[in-house]
């Protein structure tokens, strides 16, 4: 009952005309950025972040939520029309979305993608409403030792998601942790790794890391597609809607994929890409028309679209309830909240109920608004795909720099941004995943402080990190997340050898 009352209060915030306007503007901008090949929601939220600086915390978060969900909606437009996903989460939409467009069913593909996103997002928002406060209630029991272990668990899970690249995932995590140690140490006052540069005394802002890797790095990587030439997108459509038969085929895949996407999204590091690919494969296994998959099966588009929107909302759970971001986008949102003096985590619901519940209600509202925008206006929005990337990428670069300056008002961060952009390209080339580095740069500082607090409180007794039930549970999660991928890799190798023999 309490949850319902809180949610209603949230709606009374989110449905105010000012917030509706912000969701609409944020959603359209997010859709536009999400459509651009290579630029996902994290980049979108990061470069549009300065837009929210003059707003209050609630307005700022609601705008970013609009951008986030808009980018998730937009990501699949380019997958369907030009076979180029806006970001990883929209990759699965190319498998059947593009073949549908090639068969003259672009209208159905665009419509089902928006409908699946709306339903998936709404189911996930319901689950979020039910789970956010209980999870936050559990987190209140966390002491410094448990917080330290929680962050180690988030890191180890993110590293374990680096499929086939776990060692490189660990290296990426080390680089991120090294970044987090730059600046004056809060507990001893010692200057660490500042190399005498005054501006580095306050450390490297993780938003700069995110903008560097996601915006500059992705644009640099996309230079390759410039030389390959852009693909022409269909910009004229008949009525964008689906037939009864298409709905009949899609409804169960949509409903099945949403909860799966939500759960995967809530796991740190997993995100929309894994959720959408997993749900695509699930539907393929369950379908009676397996042979149609990859050739324009509408279920093959509906399931991943539902899953990736649900995952984007699931990723908000660890950020809002535990204060640990589960994805790059939620990391940017958390950074914005911290800049506004609000600490996400278990106390957010008690101390800032308007912000927390307003945000949750805005997830419902944003999904509806974005579906309304994306179905009838799809024809208008996709015209942007006709703008050549060679014009758009310099604009994104400029926005990245202005976003960075708005965060710190220091040009020293420009140099860091450039170094990280180049690092993003090199890491891509060497197959080093970037997510562990970004998460480590975000949680590294807090993780270190929690460790030292726990260590001091226990009079330098390390057993504090394994005394409580929560600590033991988290240690099991850490061990499993490291050992399971190793065991499965060894088993896969053994099976391969057996086949070869």
């Amino acid at each position, binding site marked *: 009952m309490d949850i319902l009352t809180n949610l209603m209060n949230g709606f009374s915030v989110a449905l105010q005309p000012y917030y509706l306007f912000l969701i609409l503007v944020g959603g359209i901008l997010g859709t536009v950025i999400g459509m651009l090949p290579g630029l996902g929601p994290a980049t979108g939220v990061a470069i549009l972040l300065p837009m929210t600086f003059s707003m209050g915390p609630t307005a700022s978060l609601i705008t970013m939520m609009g951008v986030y969900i808009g980018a998730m909606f937009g990501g699949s437009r380019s997958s369907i029309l030009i076979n180029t996903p806006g970001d990883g989460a929209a990759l699965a939409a190319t498998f059947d979305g593009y073949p549908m467009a090639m068969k003259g069913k672009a209208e159905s593909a665009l419509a089902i993608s928006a409908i699946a996103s709306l339903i998936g997002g709404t189911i996930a928002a319901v689950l979020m409403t039910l789970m956010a406060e209980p999870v936050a209630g559990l987190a209140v029991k966390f002491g410094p030792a448990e917080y330290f272990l929680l962050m180690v668990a988030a890191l180890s899970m993110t590293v374990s998601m680096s499929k086939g690249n776990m*060692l490189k995932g660990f290296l990426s995590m080390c680089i991120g942790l*090294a970044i987090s140690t730059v600046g004056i140490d809060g*507990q*001893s006052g010692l200057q660490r790794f500042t190399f005498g540069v005054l501006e580095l005394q306050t450390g490297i802002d993780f938003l700069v890391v995110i903008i560097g890797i996601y915006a500059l790095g992705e644009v640099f990587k996309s*230079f*390759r597609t410039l030389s390959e030439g852009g693909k022409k997108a269909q910009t004229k459509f008949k009525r964008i809607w689906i037939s009864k038969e298409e709905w009949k085929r899609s409804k169960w895949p949509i409903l099945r994929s949403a909860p799966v996407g939500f759960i995967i999204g809530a796991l740190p590091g997993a995100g929309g890409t894994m959720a959408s690919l997993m749900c695509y494969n699930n539907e393929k296994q369950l379908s009676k028309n397996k042979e149609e998959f990859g050739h324009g099966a509408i279920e093959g588009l509906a399931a991943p679209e539902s899953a990736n929107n649900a995952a984007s909302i699931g990723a908000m759970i660890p950020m809002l309830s535990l204060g640990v971001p589960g994805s790059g986008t939620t990391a940017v949102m958390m950074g914005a909240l911290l800049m506004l003096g609000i600490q996400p985590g278990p106390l957010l619901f008690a101390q800032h109920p308007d912000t927390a519940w307003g945000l949750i209600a805005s997830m419902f509202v944003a999904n509806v608004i974005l579906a309304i925008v994306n179905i009838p206006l799809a024809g208008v929005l996709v015209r942007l795909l006709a703008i050549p990337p060679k014009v758009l990428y310099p604009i994104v670069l400029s926005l990245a720099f202005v976003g960075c300056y708005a965060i710190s008002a220091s*040009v020293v961060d420009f140099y860091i941004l*450039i170094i990280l952009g*180049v690092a993003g390209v090199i890491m891509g080339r060497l197959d080093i995943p970037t997510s562990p580095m970004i998460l480590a740069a975000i949680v590294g500082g807090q993780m270190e402080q929690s460790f030292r607090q726990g260590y001091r409180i226990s009079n330098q007794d390390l057993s504090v990190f394994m005394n409580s039930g929560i600590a033991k549970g988290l240690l099991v999660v850490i061990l499993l997340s490291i050992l399971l991928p190793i065991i499965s890799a060894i088993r896969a190798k053994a099976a391969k050898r057996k086949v070869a023999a």
Partner: protein
Amino acid sequence: MSNIKSNWDGLTGLFSITFGLAYGGYAYSLPQPMFGNPLEAIFLPLAVSAIAIFIGVLLIFTGGISPSIMAIKALLNESSQRKEDRRKIAITCVICIFYAMLFEHAGYVISTSLFMFSTLTVTCGKGFWKKSALISIIFAGGIFITFNELLSVNLPPFPFFN
């Protein structure tokens, strides 16, 4: 015929070891804090350093060095188009550095117009210069007004106005 597939594991391992040694060495040479446990401030850096070195050794052990040498050779022998892409990235980086140097001295509008014009020339070619100039000026002016007037984020003003 060799069955070895090229990969970057060995080279990544070497980098990891070098990074671990340099980072750990620097952490160890940091002055001791005035109060508290003298090692507390370097706990994490030393742990990170140890993990990086360990990972580096494992990467070299599992990946080997020869596949990395093959990967470097393959990179050097890539098509001229790929080399041109890399050249464009390098030029853009240099432009970004000049932009950073100019930003506060020339003000947002002038430095950004120049930056945009240069990057558009890299991506679109010299033949596009009129449109590039127009896009650059409109974009820089538009962003300056939006940020300074609407969003209350102060960007560096024109150098000749105070």
